[in-house]
């Protein structure tokens, strides 16, 4: 395999991993998506889409620096027409948000240091503060969940791990912690407590509904912390940015794929139509071919009626022959008769008339036929001569004289090959023929036609 082929294969493999990563990201299997996209980039580091999407997946799990790094590399490699530049621009535009998130990262790192120094309570406080602001900082949520589990605070651990699993349901660390939590007695107690609370809440809600009917007109003043407004706005902005990014990379490719699929379907549809048209065209061509064959067949059939040797001509010839015979011109009638081909006509009336005329003209008489042939030859009617003498030969096949005149008639009629063949037949079949010398002389003259 050449390096170029292998390079192309790696590029295709990179695209395949990218597609897999995209599908995983769409179903929020972020851990799987990270693995696939990293593999995609290991095959081809210039796969821009894979790098940008990897950045987004990192961003969704709170891996801010990893996300930014991917986008920086991406924009460095592809400065033009790159969505990563837009992501970075948005982050820079909201630098105060970025500062706060960075502050959360610091708190997480601080919590790790505090844990090292045995300050677990303080570490929990740092992490609580961290995940309170940086909602999707997965590793902070996992660490806090683990600490709650360690401290036996099952309810809090459950709440935090649920959040972690909402961000990345397929994350093996979150799943393992959750599984471990579910096996504790604390978890079972917690579940019972939650169910009890829900039941009580449902009962309270039922009595509340009754009470509401009485105080429908009463306006109850509400109180909100003023600080909540800007926090909500901040979360909203961050959510919008993240949502837009995920939509761009999670939904847009699907839309694009949808459009491509639609285009492909259209192409398939057109191809099917074309295939049908082709089939129709081939069918029509076949029909035309069949019709052409039919026409040729009919033309040939018609030719047997109307051609020079056709049936109609034979009918005409027979009628003319009868007419000439009735006029008393037997010789002219014989000339016409020998030129009729009775094999072409099967009509009984024709066959009967032909046979009657044959008897009347003495066509079955060798001497009459031979004489008529010689007369025709003498008068230069070579074709008629041949016809008479062939009939004479049919009656008396051993007539070398008939053959001799036939050969001459062929020669005079401009048919040297047929002439040579007939002379040769005389020489072979009748070597003692009286005119064999003349036959050999003619063969010598026509030697060019010898086989």
């Amino acid at each position, binding site marked *: 395999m050449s390096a170029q082929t292998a390079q192309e294969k790696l590029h295709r493999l990179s695209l395949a991993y990218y597609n897999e990563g995209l599908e995983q990201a769409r179903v929020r299997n972020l851990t799987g998506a990270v693995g696939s996209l990293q593999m995609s980039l290991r095959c081809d580091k210039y796969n821009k889409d894979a790098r940008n999407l990897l950045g987004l997946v990192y961003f969704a799990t709170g891996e801010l620096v990893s996300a930014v790094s991917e986008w*920086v590399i991406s924009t460095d490699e592809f400065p033009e027409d790159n969505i990563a530049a837009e992501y970075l621009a948005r982050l820079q535009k909201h630098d105060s948000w970025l500062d706060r998130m960075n502050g959360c990262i610091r708190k997480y790192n601080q919590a790790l240091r505090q*844990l090292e120094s045995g300050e677990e309570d303080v570490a929990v406080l740092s992490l609580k503060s961290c995940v309170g602001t940086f909602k999707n900082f997965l590793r902070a949520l996992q660490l806090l969940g683990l600490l709650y589990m360690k401290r036996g605070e099952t309810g809090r651990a459950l709440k935090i791990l649920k959040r972690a699993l909402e961000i990345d349901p397929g994350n093996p660390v979150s799943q393992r912690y959750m599984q471990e939590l579910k096996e504790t007695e604390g978890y079972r107690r917690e579940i019972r407590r939650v169910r009890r609370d829900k039941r009580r809440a449902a009962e309270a809600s039922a009595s509340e509904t009754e009470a509401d009917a009485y105080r429908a007109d009463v306006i109850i003043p509400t109180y909100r912390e003023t600080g909540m407004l800007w926090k909500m706005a901040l979360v909203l902005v961050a959510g919008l940015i993240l949502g837009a990014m995920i939509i761009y990379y999670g939904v847009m490719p699907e839309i694009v794929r949808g459009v491509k699929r639609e285009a492909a379907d259209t192409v398939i549809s057109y191809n099917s139509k074309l295939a049908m048209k082709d089939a129709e065209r081939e069918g029509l061509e076949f029909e035309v071919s069949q019709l052409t064959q039919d026409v040729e067949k009919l033309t040939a059939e018609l030719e047997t009626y109307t051609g020079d040797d056709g049936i109609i001509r034979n009918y005409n010839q027979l009628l003319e022959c009868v007419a000439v015979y009735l006029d008393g011109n037997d010789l002219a009638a014989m000339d016409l008769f020998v030129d009729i081909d009775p094999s072409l006509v099967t009509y009984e009336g024709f066959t009967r008339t032909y046979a009657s005329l044959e008897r009347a003209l003495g066509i079955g008489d060798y001497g009459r036929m031979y004489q008529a042939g010689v007369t025709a030859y003498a008068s230069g009617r070579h074709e008629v001569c041949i016809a008479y003498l062939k009939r004479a030969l049919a009656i008396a096949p051993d007539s070398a004289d008939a053959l001799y005149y036939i050969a001459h008639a062929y020669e005079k009629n401009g048919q040297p090959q047929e002439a040579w063949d007939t002379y040769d037949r005389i020489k072979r079949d009748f070597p003692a023929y009286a005119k064999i010398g003349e036959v050999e002389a003619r063969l010598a003259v026509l030697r060019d036609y010898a086989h």
Partner: protein
Amino acid sequence: MIDFEEELKRFAPAPEVDQTAETVIGRDMTDLTDLLLQIASQNGGGRA
């Protein structure tokens, strides 16, 4: 059963935003295509 102390040790510090440049620069960007071309070059095949 989770060994909490061991599990806690698995958590590594997260890079902060001002470490982005270091992260990018320190990244090993070699991909399989690079390795392939390197092997092809060593075998005298040159760049495809």
